[in-house]
């Protein structure tokens, strides 16, 4: 660009139409792909109304989903909040699929549509396609097909076995959803597309080999009890994926119930990467839209007024309230991600002595985009923070760490933004984003399938924080219903191995089987 304001702006008012969206997209595309070098799935942009956005909200943002009352609950909550004006709706929703589906609200102004396209269609899209966690765990191509299958399958189950029976299984599975995730990668990637065919094949096989005669065969003598170690090894215990364990081993479950557990489990697995990369994902999208919008403005493609509108919305998004401001609710993932990423840009371009010492490889390298692309591809929140939270950021945000010990009457400030504190703060903040710490470590440790079939579950208590008792009892009830026999949950201190607490639960009599 030789002269500033060489071109006329893309739009002047706030109105938009489809040809304008096309032009905006065509203008942004070369900036994102050529100048920034992003690598994205093809985009599909869908314009939806506020009502449809509410609908999408209540099914965790997915365009199609099976039916369950809890989504209705989500819906009435969101609707009530929205109608009262307590909460606005998101400007966009983006789905990690191939092609990447972007929902844009029709109420957005032209500036907002530009922002949203830059944010979702390029920022999030690039992150979905390139980040290793997503690559490892999700199948962007197959997800919509799989949801379609899940929806149809569950509807069929409702027809066959009754709505209530299906609902009870789903309730129980939802309660254990967070325990339905494989946390360590296995070699075999998931082929979600084949699920439907596989299930149909199995059903056909079951129908074919069905013979009433089997019922009449007398049961033989019981097999001798297997010794503990061998038994656990045979069952793949200990197992942290409780839903997986139930699906494979649950003695009283019927095949359709297993399939439902599998559906819930696979969907939980699909969302697992998103939980680990909130700050990075939003940071990547926010950084991308900021770059793109600034580039558009510099070239005179959006007016000063539109740029002001963008800035006002952007600053709202990356606002981080301080801990004592009254509306502090944890770290804002947009602010944290964008903050660290712009800091990386700064230290790539104009490093200080301190930056050279802390980031010898990045400082002064002069190419922030390449550095960031590498980061977007190879990190998740925890490793991202523990590597790239700079002393500069810590000072700027005036971060401090407090430690609250059960044995002491007061809390203690353990580190502040000074030489002694930087590393400690960085480590502590990264730990907060460690998924293993956000969620309790719960594993199935033992079961005697030949004996009383009691299921033993263990919670490895970290830092002396036990499970929330009321909820734990309810979840355990659900687990017992699925398992069909007694379930015992022991809370064992992770360090000392001492048993702190124990809950147990027996299945309800009237649970549909």
């Amino acid at each position: 660009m030789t002269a500033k304001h060489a071109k006329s702006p893309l739009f002047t008012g706030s109105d938009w139409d489809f040809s304008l969206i096309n032009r905006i997209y065509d203008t942004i595309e070369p900036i994102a792909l050529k100048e920034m070098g992003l690598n994205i799935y093809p985009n599909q942009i869908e314009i939806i109304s506020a009502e449809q956005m509410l609908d999408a909200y209540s099914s965790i943002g997915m365009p199609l989903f099976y039916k369950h009352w809890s989504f209705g609950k989500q819906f009435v909550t969101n609707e009530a909040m929205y109608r009262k004006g307590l909460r606005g709706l998101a400007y966009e929703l983006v789905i990690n699929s191939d092609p990447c589906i972007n929902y844009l609200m029709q109420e957005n102004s032209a500036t907002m549509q530009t922002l949203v396209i830059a944010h979702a269609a390029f920022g999030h899209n690039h992150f979905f396609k390139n980040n290793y966690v997503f690559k490892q765990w999700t199948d962007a191509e197959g997800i919509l097909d799989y949801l379609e299958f899940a929806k149809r399958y569950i509807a069929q189950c409702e027809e066959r076995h009754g709505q209530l029976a299906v609902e009870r299984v789903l309730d129980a599975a939802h309660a254990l959803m967070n325990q339905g995730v494989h946390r360590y990668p296995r070699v075999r990637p998931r082929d979600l597309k084949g699920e439907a065919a596989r299930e149909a094949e199995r059903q056909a096989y079951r129908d074919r080999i069905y013979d009433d005669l089997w019922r009449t065969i007398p049961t033989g003598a019981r097999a001798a009890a297997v010794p503990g170690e061998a038994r656990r090894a045979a069952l793949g215990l200990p197992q942290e994926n409780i839903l997986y364990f139930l699906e494979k081993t649950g003695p009283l479950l019927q095949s359709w119930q297993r399939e439902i557990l599998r559906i819930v489990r696979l969907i939980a697995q699909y969302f697992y990467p998103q939980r680990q990369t909130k700050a990075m994902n939003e940071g990547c999208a926010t950084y991308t839209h900021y770059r793109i919008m600034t580039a558009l403005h510099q070239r005179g493609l959006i007016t000063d007024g539109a740029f002001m509108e963008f800035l006002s919305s952007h600053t709202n998004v990356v606002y981080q309230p301080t801990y004592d401001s009254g509306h502090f609710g944890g770290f804002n993932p947009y602010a944290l991600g964008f903050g660290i990423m712009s800091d990386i840009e700064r230290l790539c371009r104009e490093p200080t002595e301190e930056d050279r010492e802390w980031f010898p490889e990045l400082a002064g390298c002069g190419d922030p985009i390449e550095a960031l692309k590498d980061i977007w591809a190879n990190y998740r929140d925890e490793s991202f923070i523990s590597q790239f939270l700079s002393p500069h950021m810590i000072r700027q945000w005036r971060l401090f760490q407090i430690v609250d010990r059960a044995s002491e009457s007061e809390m203690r400030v353990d580190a502040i933004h000074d030489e002694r504190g930087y590393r400690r703060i960085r480590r502590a903040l990264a730990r907060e984003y460690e998924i293993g710490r956000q969620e309790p470590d719960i594993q199935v440790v033992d079961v005697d399938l030949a004996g009383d079939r009691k299921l033993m579950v263990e919670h490895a208590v970290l830092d002396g924080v036990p499970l929330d008792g009321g909820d734990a009892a309810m979840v355990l009830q659900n687990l017992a219903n699925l398992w069909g026999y007694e379930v015992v949950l022991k809370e064992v201190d992770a360090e000392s191995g001492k048993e702190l607490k124990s809950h147990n639960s027996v299945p309800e009599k009237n649970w549909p089987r």
Partner: protein
Amino acid sequence: MHIVDRRLNPGGKSLVNRQRFLRRARAYVQQAVRDSLKDRSIKDLDKDGQITIRRDAIHEPTLHRAAQGGNRERVLPGNHDYMEGDRIKRPSGGQGAGSQAGDGEGNDDFQFALSREEFLDLFLDDLELPDLAKQRLIGGKVDGIRRAGYSVAGNPSNLSVSRTMQRAMSRRLALRRPSSGDLARIEEEIAEIEARDPALPDDATRLEALREERSHIIRRRNLIAYIDPVDLRYRRFETVPKPVAQAVMFCLMDVSGSMTEHMKDLAKRFFALLHLFLTRCYEHVEVVFIHHTDRAAEVDEQTFFYSTVTGGTLVSSALEKLQEVIAERFRPDDWNIYVAQASDGDTMQSDNGRVVGLMNDAILPICQYVAYLEVGREEFADIEGIGTTTGLWQAYAPVAEANRNFVMRKVHHRREIYPVFRELFQRKGVAERSA
């Protein structure tokens, strides 16, 4: 990049989930609806509105760590003057180091809006109305729809195929669109000439001409559509408004000390149901509240249901007041008059003659319907049912026998309210009576 416009897709995707949610929380929602009746005016009964249920009724449990206890570390932004090693008092509330903020699943109330249909359904269900009657009340507008010719725009389901095809055909004829028969004939001839082995001398020119004609026909067929958007015709419907009718409903209630809260609550439900019923049948319904002890007064709804006045009981005073109001504001020629009276039946014996006289001579002749509801204590339902009759009941009994538009019932429980209306429903609604 594709752009897809989804705005016109059918909405209400969440409707099923919403219904399932309501079914799931039905017991709680029903209780909430019952409670919210206290705060609603009977005129507002069939509006949508907020209700609140306890959150734990629909709680979705997960395994998560407790909010308190144990050793915790936390990094926070915005340090002002803390130094390393400073000690801070543990905050007492949820905020601070101890809270895992953000999931918002407290033990607070869960508030959401019910639509008018949902609210009514639950309300009527509570009164144990038969489904058919419920249908009639909830059923919404019964405006008639009738065919009104054809239009060029409309809903695809209203597409009139025969009209559309007719128009398409006349357009094709007018524009001389070659038929598929024309095309087939020419192609046949081409094939015939091509197949001829020893070619005739003028075959080449003939073939040339035929081919040109064929391409001309194909072009015309492409240009002139078989069915064009201009051909589309839709069946048009229009709604036929029903004749406007207005009604006034008088609520009469004894508010002397002997009326308990339970009785008033029963009376309120009764009035509410009648009001609901009338609003279905009439475009415009006015409600007049008259309460009485030994003197009667016209009051607003709030006073009517919730104030207590001490005094004796003279039912005739209320009927006189009723007469007075009718004479003043509601000419019987212009208004359909409904009277609903609720009382515990306590009355002065000496007043009965006058009450019956007023009812027979002055009120019943100008009213569509008079209902007398005797409310009793819930706990005495069995005993009272056996035979003890109150003074007012005895007085009204002959009136009810002589007049078809007078109905009286004893009610102890809310489920007994509906039978009072049964007669009305059996006669296929008030609308036909008043027509």
